[in-house]
């Protein structure tokens, strides 16, 4: 017997599943605590977030242990992808118009400047987690969007399983983390383009027993400005929305952060990501812009239609 709770968090849909229905409220409360703390630490869209206050103070100063962990996760993602996922894309995101919650961005009409401008680079971020300080050079704006939600999913699953004392799956906008003992056969997960798509949306159902699963897609969070179609996955090399042969990539990993970093990297890198995923034994499902599916590194084959 399992139970589920759905609510909004981090500007997206959240779902918590537990193997013990009686423990659902405890699990949900733990998830909401983690998500609230992460949002307060690193939201770009909240004036009162710690990251926003740090930016107003010139980008340097003491940081909380949580923000230090979030920045460290972003830097680690950059290090393991040679900068394909880079937390210094904050300015690029702002320049392409993604400077508020997506509902506001989608409704906006102001034209944007689409000039290639590479991200400053993650190596400029000077984090001293021991001293609890962060230093950003002038002009460097940090966006932890590529890793913060997945980090929250990992942390929330861990805390929820501890609070509930049972198996837990946490989904934050389709970024999944699993902790505790799963139900027999695993949690059922529909892998698809849009985590909030309609019932019956095309995709593949897989069963997961642990770790993390994340999907990055250029089919969601799209908007138009000045005749240009834009989306939220920015290539740090150009500062512009990535032009990829993949529209959607789903990856399984030991953690949701690693899964999300790998999925986003695959969108940015395109074809050459396949070898990288195989080399790192990361099972992945890659959907090309024309809908063809490629499964690698042990991703299950799809049942015949």
């Amino acid at each position, binding site marked *: 017997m399992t139970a589920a709770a759905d609510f909004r968090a981090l500007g997206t849909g959240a779902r918590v599943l537990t193997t013990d229905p009686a423990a659902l409220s405890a699990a949900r409360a733990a998830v909401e605590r983690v998500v609230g703390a992460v949002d307060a630490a690193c939201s770009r869209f909240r004036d009162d977030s710690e990251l926003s206050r740090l930016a107003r103070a010139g980008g340097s100063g003491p940081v909380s242990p949580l923000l230090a962990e979030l920045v460290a996760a972003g830097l680690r993602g950059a290090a393991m992808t040679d900068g394909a996922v880079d937390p210094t894309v904050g300015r690029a995101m702002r320049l392409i118009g993604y400077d508020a919650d997506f509902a506001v961005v989608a409704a906006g009409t102001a034209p944007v400047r689409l000039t290639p401008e590479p991200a400053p680079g993650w190596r400029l971020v000077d984090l001293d987690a021991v001293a609890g300080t962060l230093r950003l050079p002038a002009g460097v704006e940090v966006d932890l969007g590529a890793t913060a939600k997945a980090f929250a999913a990992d942390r929330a699953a861990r805390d929820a399983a501890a609070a509930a004392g049972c198996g837990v799956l946490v989904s934050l906008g389709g970024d999944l983390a699993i902790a505790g003992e799963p139900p027999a056969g695993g949690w059922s997960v529909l*892998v698809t383009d849009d985590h909030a798509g309609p019932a019956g949306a095309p995709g593949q159902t897989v069963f997961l027993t642990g770790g993390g699963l994340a999907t990055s897609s250029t089919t969601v969070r799209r908007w138009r400005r000045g005749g240009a179609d834009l989306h939220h996955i920015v290539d740090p090399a150009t500062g512009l929305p990535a032009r990829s042969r993949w529209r959607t990539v789903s990856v399984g990993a030991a953690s949701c952060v690693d899964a999300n970093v790998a999925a986003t990297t695959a969108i940015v890198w395109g074809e050459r990501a396949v070898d990288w995923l195989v080399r790192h034994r990361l099972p992945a499902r890659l959907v090309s812009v024309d809908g063809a599916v490629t499964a690698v590194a042990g991703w299950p084959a799809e049942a015949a239609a």
Partner: protein
Amino acid sequence: MWHGNESPVEARDRGLQRLRGWTTASALLAAALAFVFALLAAGTFPGRDTSAASGDSPSSSSSGASVQPSEEQPSVAQPQPPSEGFFGSGSGSGSGGGRHARSGGS
């Protein structure tokens, strides 16, 4: 020491022989000690998988490598694959109810 019934040449040869013995013993002792220290060091200091050692580490990171999602992020700058048995043996399909979730873009 030059014994009374021993010529200087014989004494020299005997001294050289003793010296050679000491040299051989010292070399064997040094090799044995190096082997012992190598074993001790291998057991004391954790190694690093070279396939996971390339790439730059961030200036700071969270710690505690683990394959469990509930643990802290590993510090090595390589993505960690899921553990064996990541994909379960369940069957069926569907996206509703208390056992189902969705992974998609958001």
